[in-house]
């Protein structure tokens, strides 16, 4: 069987149709969209069309609310830094403990500069407490930034409701929606969300292209100043080929959104059910009843994620892990720690994330090899003995920690 790619929350394959619409912008319409000659005369139209394709996917009111950026991280940084620059008297930011580093690392940095960062905790199923959120909203808060869906567990947060609450308190609301866009339907014009980040490479467009949605009338300060591109809100010559590619990818995502929530979801559910039924001592993390249709994150107790990934890779299967060792950082995933998942399980979490390119046959192949991989590693584990974990694992094996 050909290699199986189940790491679509990390990044996706670029759709062939997307590549096809991009090629002319490298070879023929390569002119600068600002130029007045025939090498550029189609570019402005291409960009306008792409803007409308993005608009249709996220359901915003105006296509001028779309600002093309270089990536999700740039969109996130632009949103937060704009909010604090535009409102210099407000010194607080509300976010969550489970955001992507694109938000968390920036917030840590702002903390050093004197900002107060409120990080909403999550419960064991990865859910936020809206009551404690309400108490934090005040006229001191410059911006709330809450991800639409978590990249590791797929847990969806009630951003529409949270944006209403922020709006009522006069606070700007931003959502990092890079994992949600294209996987669940959205209609931004019916919400009070002021800013939203999305990233091309998560929805079968190339890497290096992103969008910041900016609601008309939201006070704004650009991150990059220079030329008049993006109506002066993001200077720098347009990445025209990628913008056109992203437009096409958004159009395709909209066409497939039902498929994503039926067929893709069925594949995910079958894999999840098959694994949890055939392998003892594993469990699904996150909010099982409120998740992205393509994501499952499973904790395999008493073994470590990188080892699992290496054996999966040998079997031709690509996934990812929340273990410390895969990230090069020294801690297991902050998302797993925030959900209070025990160490011996947090290190063994594996995320399988699907796309419309996956098939049921691939699911069956993973189900065939997974029990053997887990058993092989448990045989090496000091927490495991024969067919089950040792009695009182934490007491039976209590190493001296350096």
């Amino acid at each position: 069987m050909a290699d199986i790619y189940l790491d679509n929350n990390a990044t996706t394959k670029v759709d062939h149709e997307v590549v096809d619409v991009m090629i002319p912008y490298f070879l023929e319409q390569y002119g600068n969209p600002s130029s007045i000659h025939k090498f550029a005369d189609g570019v402005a139209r291409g960009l306008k069309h792409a803007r409308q394709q993005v608009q249709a996917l996220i359901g915003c009111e105006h296509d001028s609310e779309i600002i093309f950026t270089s990536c999700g991280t740039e969109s996130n940084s632009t949103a937060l830094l704009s909010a604090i620059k535009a409102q210099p008297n407000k010194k607080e930011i509300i976010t969550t403990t489970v955001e992507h580093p694109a938000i968390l690392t920036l917030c840590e940095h702002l903390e050093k500069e004197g900002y107060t960062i409120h990080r909403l905790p999550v419960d064991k199923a990865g859910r936020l407490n809206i009551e404690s959120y309400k108490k934090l909203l005040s006229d001191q808060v410059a911006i709330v930034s809450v991800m639409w869906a978590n990249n590791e567990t797929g847990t969806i947060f009630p951003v529409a409701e949270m944006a209403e609450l922020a709006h009522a308190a006069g606070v700007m609301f931003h959502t990092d929606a890079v994992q949600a866009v294209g996987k669940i339907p959205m209609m931004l014009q019916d919400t009070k969300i002021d800013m939203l980040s999305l990233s091309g490479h998560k929805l079968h467009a190339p890497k290096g292209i992103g969008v910041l949605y900016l609601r008309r009338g939201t006070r704004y300060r650009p991150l990059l100043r220079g030329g008049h591109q993006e109506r002066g809100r993001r200077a720098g010559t347009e990445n025209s080929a990628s913008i056109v590619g992203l437009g096409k990818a958004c159009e395709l995502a909209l066409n497939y959104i039902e498929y994503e929530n039926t067929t893709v979801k069925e594949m995910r559910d079958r894999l999840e059910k098959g694994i949890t039924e055939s392998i003892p001592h594993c469990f699904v993390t996150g909010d099982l009843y409120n998740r992205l249709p393509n994501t499952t994150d499973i904790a395999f107790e008493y073994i470590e994620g990188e080892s699992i990934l290496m054996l999966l890779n040998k079997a031709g299967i690509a996934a990812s892990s929340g273990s410390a060792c895969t990230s090069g950082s020294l801690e297991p995933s902050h998302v797993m720690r925030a959900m209070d998942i025990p160490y011996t399980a947090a290190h063994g979490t594996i995320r399988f994330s699907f796309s419309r390119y996956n098939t049921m046959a691939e699911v069956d192949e993973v189900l065939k090899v997974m029990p053997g991989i887990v058993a092989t590693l448990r045989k090496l584990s000091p927490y495991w003995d024969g067919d089950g974990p040792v009695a009182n694992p934490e007491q039976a094996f209590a190493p001296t920690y350096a």
Partner: protein
Amino acid sequence: MWDYSDKVKEHFFNPKNAGAVAEANATGEVGSISCGDALRLTLKVDDDTEVILEAGFQTFGCGSAIASSSVLTEMIIGMTIDDALKITNQDIAGQLEGLPPEKMHCSVMGREALQAAIANYRGEVWKDDHEEGALICKCFAIDAVMIEEMVWANKLRTVEDVTNFTKAGGGCASCHEDIEAILEKVLAEKGEKFDPTVAPAAQPEKIAAVKAPLTNLQRIKKIEEVLESLRPSLLADGGDVELVEVIGNTAYVNMTGACNGCQMAAMTISGIQQRLMEVMGEFIKVVPASEMSKLTQVEVA
């Protein structure tokens, strides 16, 4: 994915001596708090000869933790416990044909499990002698705890000081922001303030910046001086450097001892180059002497 050597992969995919030794008379259980990995090493030691007859490991950890455990058991079987105690974590990493800097702690865990098992055999209590922190300098595998201790102990005040004393930050320089943060923190604890413009406090012999262009003789002398000042830290790692030739702005050096063939050699060379440029205030290129032959061939041709 990590760039693991073939040897690491071999030991991970086909681990040797997995599982507990049946009639073990020595057990060591250690973990690395930094990544959650843990290892139980069981040994069967001959009471008369003190030779390790059997060794088995059980590891909760990543690919390199399992490989380090596996290769360790292979290394120690047949050794006396006194000889086994001489094994360093570098030896374990060496047997694996190197480990990525982020993963060196896996080899440390192996050495510690061995020490703990032998202490257990001798009826002693093993005490861990080092603390591990977040990895700061990836070029030279230096962690935060080490840097903090050196800043405290030697009254370091600048990034340059830290590089002189620990090597941290002497390679690609991308960790300088993190080193500044550590300096800020420690100096604040001491009631001082971090000032990036202050002259390096701890530099033993300050070499004056040279304004006028150097003559070739001056340049060679300066390069020798700088290499001399770097030598102690190279010797500490069992390596050395030798200046072979200087042609224009290019210095040809031989890395000897442990530096020879070390996977960090390229990093060390770029660290030397950076130091030379800082001291001499001009562009200097440092190149392994082996490159000189190519140069001669070109000239002859």
